[in-house]
């Protein structure tokens, strides 16, 4: 309990620090923020109006506190380009990105966990080697290229097999769930294959550590076969470690997700943030960056908690820091 409280306190403090960093990042732009946002050939009156509208004429500490107070009330500001509230805009985009990441993660687990076990347990050496090589190559591919290869194979239009759409989200969004899901298949497959390949290596490594352990010997001495013990005891004991890896993988999936969203022209958080940045819609960018940072810190926090819950040895102890850490950028 004390650990939970302390860890949460750190989370809040880190978030405050990051908010300050984001605030500063937006304001140390070369040139004046209002004129950058208004565009190159904007008349001075327009720049002036924008400045007072966004409160950019007030002192910086004042601006920061106002922003924080707005955030606390759930007001994330308005997009300059579309005039829509940033929270609504982010909500719409999240409805594309989260299903995409969720589906990708599911595919990754469906591929990664069994194949990771296979690369250790297969009785034929050439099967083990083949699976291992596939894992290394799959995890070394740029997401962009993986997506291109899948387009070449499966997409309607330029693909060999012509099954899945490769451009854009379903017209009606989630009101036509079948179509929406259909348009996410190729992008999610791209993410899933690449993340799955890394997950395979982690599963293999974690299980290999377990293989020689006393826990496995004990389970086998009680009457389990080697395979049974590995799947029941080994996988269970490696679980906290795998949860940590999955958590970090999830954080890094956003990079891959951004690339994939752009490649497949999906209106998600990543592609949206990049286009907002390109459009110099900086007030929206500021709030979006903050929301993403808050989200990922929260995921990290939850992963730490799950890690502790999954391991009775840690539940009793009060020390911070969860064993593994693996950072795999999938770009």
């Amino acid at each position: 309990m004390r650990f939970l409280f302390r860890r949460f306190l750190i989370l809040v403090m880190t978030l405050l620090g990051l908010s300050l960093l984001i605030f500063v990042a937006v304001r140390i732009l070369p040139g004046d923020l209002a004129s950058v946002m208004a565009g190159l050939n904007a008349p001075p009156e327009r720049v002036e109006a924008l400045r007072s509208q966004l409160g950019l004429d007030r002192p910086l500490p004042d601006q920061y506190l106002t922003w924080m107070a707005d955030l606390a009330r759930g007001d994330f500001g308005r997009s300059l380009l579309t005039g829509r509230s940033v929270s609504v805009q982010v909500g719409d985009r999240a409805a594309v990105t989260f299903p995409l990441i969720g589906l990708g993660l599911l595919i990754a687990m469906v591929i990664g966990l069994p194949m990771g076990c296979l690369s250790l347990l297969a009785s034929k050496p050439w099967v083990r080697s083949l699976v291992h090589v596939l894992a290394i190559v799959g995890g070394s591919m740029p997401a962009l290229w993986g997506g291109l290869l899948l387009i070449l194979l499966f997409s309607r239009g330029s693909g060999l097999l012509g099954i899945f759409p490769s451009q854009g989200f379903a017209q009606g969004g989630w009101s036509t769930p079948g179509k929406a899901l259909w348009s996410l298949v190729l992008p999610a497959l791209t993410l899933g294959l690449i993340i799955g390949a890394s997950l395979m290596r982690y599963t293999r490594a974690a299980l290999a550590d377990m293989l020689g352990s006393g826990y496995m010997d004990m389970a086998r001495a009680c009457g389990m076969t080697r395979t049974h013990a590995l799947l029941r005891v080994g996988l269970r004991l490696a679980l906290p470690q795998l949860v940590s890896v999955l958590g970090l993988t999830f954080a890094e999936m956003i990079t891959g997700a951004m690339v994939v969203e752009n490649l497949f022209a999906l209106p998600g958080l990543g592609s949206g943030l990049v286009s907002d940045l390109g459009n110099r819609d900086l007030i929206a960018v500021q709030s979006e960056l903050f929301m993403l940072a808050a989200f990922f810190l929260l995921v990290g926090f939850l992963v730490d908690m799950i890690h502790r819950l999954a391991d009775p040895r840690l539940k009793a102890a009060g020390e911070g820091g969860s064993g593994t850490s693996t950072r795999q950028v999938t770009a």
Partner: protein
Amino acid sequence: MSLSIKNLSVSIGGKTILDQVSLDLADGQRVGLVGPSGSGKSMITKAFLGLLPPRAQASGSICLGGKEILGASERTLADLRGAYVGTVFQNPAASLNPVLTVKKQLTLPLRLHYDLSRCEREERALAMLDKLGLDRSVANAYPSQLSGGQQQRVGIGTALITSPRLIIADEPTTALDSISQMMVIELLDRLVDQSGASLLFVTHDFSVLRRIASQAYVLDRGKVVEAGEIQRILTSPQSLEAQGLVAAARELTLAVGHGRQPLPAEERTS
């Protein structure tokens, strides 16, 4: 259950671990396997449990209850383990599954081998806790919440819950303090006595062994260098290695001196 090992050799990656080892254990008999660390004594128990690493190569013969089991399928061996052969490991903290409660750990062999109802299993677990001298309240505790001595008692309970005909104790006292050592030895002695099972007791320490077994094999660098009555080995060790081990045990007992006579004045009846 009788155990007969003939000319067992094991090598891992070209390195010989066991060299032509032969060992006999009659039904109901208790035999010790003594040797310094690295002598390959644990490897013998692993070999006939089928727990050798996959890279290991074994040759010779291991007969359990008259059946050859060396090279038997993993399925066959798994059916023997836990049902006919119970094993107590050296370090309970590194072998008891940390995510299973004591109750679940104790009943694991029952679940794997017998078709019992939940209630029946639970009853047997509680009865076993009584036999082990553990309070029934630890049934729902995790191993990490128990002391080393308590953990090892759970380990013994897990090995004995199915009333196997052969018990292997692989240095069960090495990881414990001296008081827990005594308790564990007495417990093991009593429970094995009650069940009438055979016992193979692996250790590096004669002073522990003589309390529980009558026969011993002395192992050094993968070879059996001496075998016979423990009493005889203690009074007149033939091989150099046995002499060293006996001297070490005598010195320890003298130094600790549990108010007992120095070896070999005391006789064990088993």
